[in-house]
Structures are given as structure tokens and as C-alpha cells.
């Protein structure tokens, strides 16, 4: 596979991640388009360290952070997608989560926890890979992921599972 092939192969995952991160389809695809163009412009300088996929995720995450800095200077409008009605059907099978609840819970997570959760739980990256994408130590990434998973559990009404065992407060630190 050429670098160009690998760049193309990474796009579906980048779109999935951006969509989950931003919850706005057009904004997500704009972010991926910017990421793609930056990667294409720099592909000649690609030296083959690590995976093209990881490199593109790093570009996307950096662009996302740049965008957040710009937005934080002006009034912020949060767009929460309202096109997920198909997921709201009641009576989800036992053992499955109500997807709308999960979506709402992800929306409420702080951005750093959401990124940790999505890279690992949605994109299937290892802690090492995800930490490299976000530029974090592995332990920091792990504790963000732990907090994200705990918030998600609390928000989706499964807090009772914790009653089974003593809760180890303090093991998952910021």
C-alpha cells in the first residue's frame, strides 16, 4: 500500500471519530476534510514512523484543539445532533443500552474524557496508541478513560452495579 492508499483507508475511522466527537455532521466532515488536506500536503515528508492512521488521528486532534481555541474566543453555540430519532425507540433489549442515553452521556463528558473514551472504546486503540495520538502519558490516558467509563455508567443508570463491591475511590485520579 502506498501512503496515499493508507491515507484513504484511514478516512472512514476519522469520520466516525469526528462525528462522535463533535456530534455535528457537517462540522465533523469539515474537520476530516481539513485533516485530509493537511495529510495530503505533507505526505511527501512521511517517513514511515508508526502508522499512517495514528499520524492522521494526531493531525485531526490538533486541528480539533485549534478549532476549540478559536471558538473559545467568541460566543459558543453547541450543536447537539437531533437526527438520531431512530435510536430512541423504547424497549431496547435487555443487556443493551438505550443508545440515546449513551449519546447524551457522551455529550456531557468533558472533551478530554470523551476523546480518551472514543479512541479506545470506539476506535479500538490500545492505551499506548491513544496516548500517542493525544500526546499524553499512558497513565493519564488510562485515568481519563476510567473517569469517562464511570460517568457513562452513572449516566446510563447502571450505578447499582457498583454496590456489589466496595468502590475504590482514589484509584482513578485526574
Amino acid at each position: 500500500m502506498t501512503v496515499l492508499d493508507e491515507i484513504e483507508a484511514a478516512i472512514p475511522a476519522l469520520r466516525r471519530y469526528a462525528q462522535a466527537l463533535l456530534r455535528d455532521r457537517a462540522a465533523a466532515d469539515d474537520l476530516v476534510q481539513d485533516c485530509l488536506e493537511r495529510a495530503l500536503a505533507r505526505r511527501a515528508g512521511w517517513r514511515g514512523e508508526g502508522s499512517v492512521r495514528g499520524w492522521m488521528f494526531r493531525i485531526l486532534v490538533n486541528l480539533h484543539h485549534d478549532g476549540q481555541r478559536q471558538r473559545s474566543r467568541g460566543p459558543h453555540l453547541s450543536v447537539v445532533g437531533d437526527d438520531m430519532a431512530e435510536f430512541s425507540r423504547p424497549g431496547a433489549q435487555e443487556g443493551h443500552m438505550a443508545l440515546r442515553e449513551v449519546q447524551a452521556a457522551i455529550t456531557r463528558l468533558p472533551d478530554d474524557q470523551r476523546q480518551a473514551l472514543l479512541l479506545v472504546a470506539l476506535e479500538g486503540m490500545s492505551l499506548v496508541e491513544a496516548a500517542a495520538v493525544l500526546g499524553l502519558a499512558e497513565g493519564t490516558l488510562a485515568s481519563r478513560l476510567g473517569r469517562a467509563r464511570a460517568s457513562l455508567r452513572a449516566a446510563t443508570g447502571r450505578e447499582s452495579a457498583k454496590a456489589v463491591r466496595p468502590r475504590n475511590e482514589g484509584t482513578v485520579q485526574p
Partner: protein
Amino acid sequence: MTGRQPFSDLELIMRRHGARPAAPRALDAAATATLAEWDRQDAALAALYGPIAAEPLPATMRAALGRAAHEDAAPRAAWPPRARIAAAFVLVALGAAGGWGAARLLPSGGFAPPAAAFAAIRAHQTFVGEVTHPVEVKADQAEHLTRWLSKRLGHAINAPDFAAFGFVLMGGRILPAEPGTAAVFMYENATGQRITLYAAPGDGSSETAFRFVEAGATQGFWWVDSGLRYAVVGEVPREALRSLATAAWEQLT
């Protein structure tokens, strides 16, 4: 005894997602329940966002990849700009002399202008007569105009300068194209005559020299370069239009 110590979330995370092999330690009921809960979280995420990864890529992304593939296949350095310009002049001259420059909008002589040429003519005819809204973004917001049209086109584009021909940029707009989104710049001269420059993402067709199309009084020159399809359209004499197209081609290359 470690077996009695409950698993912390962090320990379970390292065990589930870490690169190092987990210590051989049997999971208790609570840890098993937590891991099952995380499986459900992962499944919910996959159900919510997985389908996006199965969708075909948007046209703007395909266009960007197509341009890159085109660049890789034919490195531009091998074909110096001056030679390209000279070659284009020769081809335009040949076209004018040989008759294929006179291709009509209706297929004739076995040669049909592409859909983009029709689209450029239609866009011109639709907007050139507009009194109140000839453009969506006016030229006084030049930086925004350039950024917006480049973004939607999926390719950096600056409006060519036609001041030497007396035409001043009024502004621009976007239009749907197949594939992708087209950018249209509109210009006006002192007499109120208007011309448009149309640019659309490539559809895979290879580079061409200028080709002429006309529909009634509306005439245009179109060409394909660096993976974009362009046309300059107006109701001005063909030679004036050719000069404008050449200036556009030089500035856009």
C-alpha cells in the same frame, strides 16, 4: 492477600486495553460485572457511530484524493510552467483553426462538451442578470470569500485578477456540482457587462487545452487542470473571452 483486594477501575482498564500482559489473577464477580458493563458501552458506541465508517466518502474528500493521485502519477516538475503555457497557446490556436474550438453545446462532430461546461453556462445565465443578489459573498470580504470557496471546493482557489481587461471582482457563490461543490466568481466591467469564472472538482478527466462552448449569446472557454474543471463564461466577443481564459489559466496554475 491480593485475591481479596477488589479490582480498581484503573487496574481493569490496564488489563483490558494495556499493551502489557495482565497479571494472572482471577476476576471476582464485581470485576466481571464491570467488564460486562464496558462491553455494553463499547457496543453502544459501535451502534451509534459505526455506520458512518461504512458510508461512501464525501465527494470533496474523493476529489482531494483524486488530485493527490493525479499529482503522484504526473509530477508537475517534469513539465515547466513556461512550457505548459506555450503548449496551451499552441493548442488554443490549433483549436481555433482546426474547428474543435468551435464545439457547440449540442454534441457535434463526435465531441460532446462535458457536464461541467453546461453547468458553467447555466450558472452564468442564472446569476448574471441578478440585480439584488448576483453573489452570495461580496468581494469586499475578500479573505472570507477565498477561505469559504476554497473550503467548499476542497481546493485552494484565489479569484483571478482581470483588472487588465477592465473586469473587477464582484464576489462569489457556491453551487452543487457532480462530484462535489463548484465555486463561481463573478466580475463586472465599467459598462455593467458581467463574466463568470466557474471551478468544480475534477471528475477524473485528464488535463485539456481550452475548448469553446456557446449557448445563444453566452460563450465560454473551459479546461481541466490540476484535477479541477474550469470555465470562463460571458457574453463578450470570443477573442476577449479567450484572453480572459488565458489570464485565468495562468493565475490559477
